[in-house]
């Protein structure tokens, strides 16, 4: 019953938040209590293994809700991120419905985690995408309704594929529960697996299915994107695990090529999304593509299908939840102050918003996977796993993708914080408390889990050990795989030591004074105060020439083509109802004649 109570708490808080909509303070307090209550309740009351039977007996489907260690792992991520999102969202002017929808999307997400059978899995998956669609619809910006439309279409596409897969499975195995189907004959199980995987590929925006993601991330409310990209995409990862391990455990034996294709799709998504990312001039679009690229790694992790590659994938999913939401939070704080996402209009904000700068700095260090932070262990494990699977081309593709991470993260931090402060941003203050609190809270795991990853690897290993033969030796601080050994805190300590050393060198020699902004070497040409020195937009413009034509290809064209076909069919169907009653009459008589002619034989 505990899980049912949890969903009830969240649902009720959502409703209350809606009813108390106009009274801002009361609504905020209620939703805060609800979120914290949910988190605490989840952490203390819910244990793995307990099956909270909420069996609504409808024909042969029962709403049993099971609980596995993995769902706790993701549950904590979800609830934690939701709390951060909530605290930050109090600064935005949202109405009651916004909070209700966000609470219900959380409810959907948690429901998915607890689902034991495919129909309730689908029920909660649909609720989650429905309510996040409604939030994206309420988002700011004028294109938000276009992207909301794309979002709902893509998630519906995924959901219906899932439904088809479920019913194929039920038809062959006569049970709706999430049970293994690898014993089925023929390649029907291949079809079932692909169909079941599609919604999760859509949710984690793998390449062919990623068209909705940039739009949805940029156009939904800034703080909600934190939860959308950090939290809800994790449901896709959870889905991968369910599909690849619970539903089809013998996949490595039966269809190894499918896993390799899945890994390569993930790698291609990571690199292509990275390239698109550093071409963007809008901060949130850049982060959206970066989030897609990071999720590509997770797909590679699952594709490689060895013990510590899945551990790496789950660890990277957690890492992604931490540093991606940190980046989105900082951009939200910047938007709160400067009211713009456009990289061209920002610049030099380090002078005004130092805390956000530090947050973003460590965020991008983690995104690019530089050692002391959380990004590195998962990437390191992933590389080791791929090399062990002796697929060298895949490892170079993934490495190429991680290089693009350096490019777009530097572009982000440079165009927002470094460079020349625009005149209108002269007197803006640091981002308000909500954002600051979120940044600080997210920085802690960034470093703690970065230096001693054992904390998280232990539970993940406990989950994955059940399915795959473990060959990763680890303790709190360092990890050894058959290939190599890394001691994470050692890297951290040496870097801090050396930092102090070079800082001392810096301090000994001479004093330096601060120069005014326009005291810049411009070949001694005279520039006045508001001379636009900031080189924010088109940062990697020349790369467009380097890539040339391939950059212009996009999946959008293929989608529009099949849309045209469907609307052509629509034209024909519409042509049937041409408006003149006599023609309708003629239809009836014609139909009668044809039927009689066909049936004539039997008459």
């Amino acid at each position, binding site marked *: 019953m505990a899980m049912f109570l949890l969903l009830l708490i969240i649902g009720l808080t959502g409703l209350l938040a809606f009813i108390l909509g106009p009274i801002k303070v009361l609504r905020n307090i209620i939703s805060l209590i609800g979120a914290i209550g949910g988190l605490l309740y989840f952490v203390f009351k819910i244990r793995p293994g307990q099956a909270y039977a909420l069996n609504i007996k409808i024909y042969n489907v029962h709403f049993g809700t099971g609980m596995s260690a993995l769902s706790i792992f993701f549950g904590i991520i979800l609830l934690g991120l939701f709390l951060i999102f909530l605290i930050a969202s109090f600064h935005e002017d949202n109405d009651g419905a916004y909070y209700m929808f966000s609470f219900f999307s959380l409810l959907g997400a948690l429901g998915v985690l607890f689902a034991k059978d495919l129909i309730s899995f689908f029920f909660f998956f649909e609720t989650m995408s429905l309510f996040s669609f409604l939030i994206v619809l309420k988002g700011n910006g004028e294109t938000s309704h276009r992207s909301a439309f794309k979002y709902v279409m893509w998630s519906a596409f995924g959901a219906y594929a899932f439904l088809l897969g479920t019913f194929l499975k039920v038809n062959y195995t006569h049970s709706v529960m999430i049970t293994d189907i690898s014993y089925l004959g023929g390649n029907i199980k291949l079809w079932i697996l692909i169909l079941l995987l599609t919604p999760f590929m859509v949710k984690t925006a793998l390449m062919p299915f990623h068209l909705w993601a940039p739009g949805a991330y940029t156009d939904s409310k800034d703080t909600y994107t934190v939860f959308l990209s950090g939290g809800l995409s994790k449901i896709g990862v959870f889905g991968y695990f369910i599909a690849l391990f619970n539903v089809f455990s013998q996949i490595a034996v039966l269809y190894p090529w499918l896993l390799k294709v899945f890994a390569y799709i993930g790698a291609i998504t990571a690199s292509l999304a990275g390239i698109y990312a550093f071409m963007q001039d809008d901060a949130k679009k850049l982060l959206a593509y970066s989030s897609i690229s990071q999720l590509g790694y997770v797909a590679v992790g699952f594709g490689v299908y060895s013990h510590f590659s899945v551990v790496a994938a789950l660890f990277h999913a957690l890492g992604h939840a931490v540093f991606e939401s940190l980046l989105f939070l900082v951009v939200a704080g910047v938007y709160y102050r400067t009211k713009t996402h456009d990289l061209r209009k920002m610049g030099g904000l380090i002078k005004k918003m130092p805390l956000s700068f530090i947050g973003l700095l460590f965020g991008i260090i983690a995104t690019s996977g*530089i050692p002391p932070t959380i990004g590195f262990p998962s*990437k390191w494990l992933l590389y080791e796993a791929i090399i062990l699977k002796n697929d060298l081309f895949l490892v170079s593709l993934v490495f190429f993708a991680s290089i693009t991470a350096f490019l777009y993260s*530097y572009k982000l931090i440079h165009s927002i914080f470094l460079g020349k402060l625009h005149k209108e941003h002269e007197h803006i203050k640091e981002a308000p408390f909500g954002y600051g609190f979120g940044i600080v809270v997210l920085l802690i795991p960034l470093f703690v889990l970065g230096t001693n990853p054992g904390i998280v690897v232990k539970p993940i290993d406990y989950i994955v050990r059940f399915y795959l033969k473990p060959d990763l030796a680890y303790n709190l601080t360092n990890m050894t795989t058959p290939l190599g050994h*890394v001691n994470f805190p*050692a890297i951290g300590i040496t870097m801090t030591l050396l930092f102090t050393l070079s800082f001392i060198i810096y301090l000994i020699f001479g004093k330096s004074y*601060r*120069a005014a902004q326009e005291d810049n*070497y411009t070949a001694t040409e005279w520039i006045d105060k508001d001379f636009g020195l900031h080189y924010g937009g088109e940062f990697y413009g*020349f790369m467009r020439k380097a890539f040339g034509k391939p950059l212009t290809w996009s999946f959008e064209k293929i989608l529009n083509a099949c849309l045209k076909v469907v609307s052509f069919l629509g034209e024909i169907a519409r042509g049937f109802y041409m408006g003149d009653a006599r023609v309708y009459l003629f239809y009836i008589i014609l139909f009668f004649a044809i039927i009689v002619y066909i049936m004539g034989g039997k008459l």
Partner: protein
Amino acid sequence: MSILYFFLYLLLVTVIGLLYMGVARKVTAHIQNRYGPPIYQPILDVLKLFGKRHTVTHGVMHSLGPVIAYTGIASTLLFLPLGNHTPLLHFKGDLFVVLYLLVVGPLGMALGAGESSNPNATIAMARALSLMLGYEIIFFMATLPVFYHYHTASIYKVIQAQGVFPHWGAIIFPISFLAALFALQGMMGEKPFEIAIAPHEIASGPMVEYGGKYLGLLQLWHAVGIIVETGLLVDIFFGPQNIIWFFIGTFIVFYVVILVNAVMPRFRIEQAVRFYWGIPLLLAILGILQVYIWR
């Protein structure tokens, strides 16, 4: 004891690095049929730079840039086994740790240069990072066969495995070694790929606003960088058994790089990236195929 040993080691490498730079200037001078400065000239330059009184900074990050740069390259140094002995005793360098730490240096300098809000610096950083898109992947694909051949990801084990002359990485994998050389040229930022620091086009790139002690720190960073990058190549492809062989190896490789640098003109950035995805990429792929066939 280890802390003192630690500083001495760092000082030694920095001085050797500076001497390498002196040799480089000497060699280029002689190629251009002139005498060129004494070998210890860079040390004098660094001392002069640190002696400067009034230097200008554009903000905290601007002054911290070179500090982070030097930290990055120094920590990469400490994780790179020079010959068969490594300063941090219990921890043998891992390829990925070294590759990712290599990025901290340029990132620090990039942040500092960005803060100076000088368009030259930012264009330079954009070019440097895009170039990285070119050479980094080639370098990784070139070194991969060696690691894969010896079934390890740690550089230290690779050195030990290479041992005597016929077992050198360069001999077993000549194609990958060639590709690695191309990549090294880009990584060092030497002439054909000196796009980031191009003095004529963007007024010495990121260092445009750095003077005095900051420039000194950056010179140190460059010096240690030479040793680390060439050292990485030498460790992987030649496996020097002791430190003397290590420095001889680095000198030879550095010498080749300088020769190329002295005579080559400079690429435009998109030409450079396109170049890297041409022949070097082909070579790297051939190297990997060779490993597959070999195994």
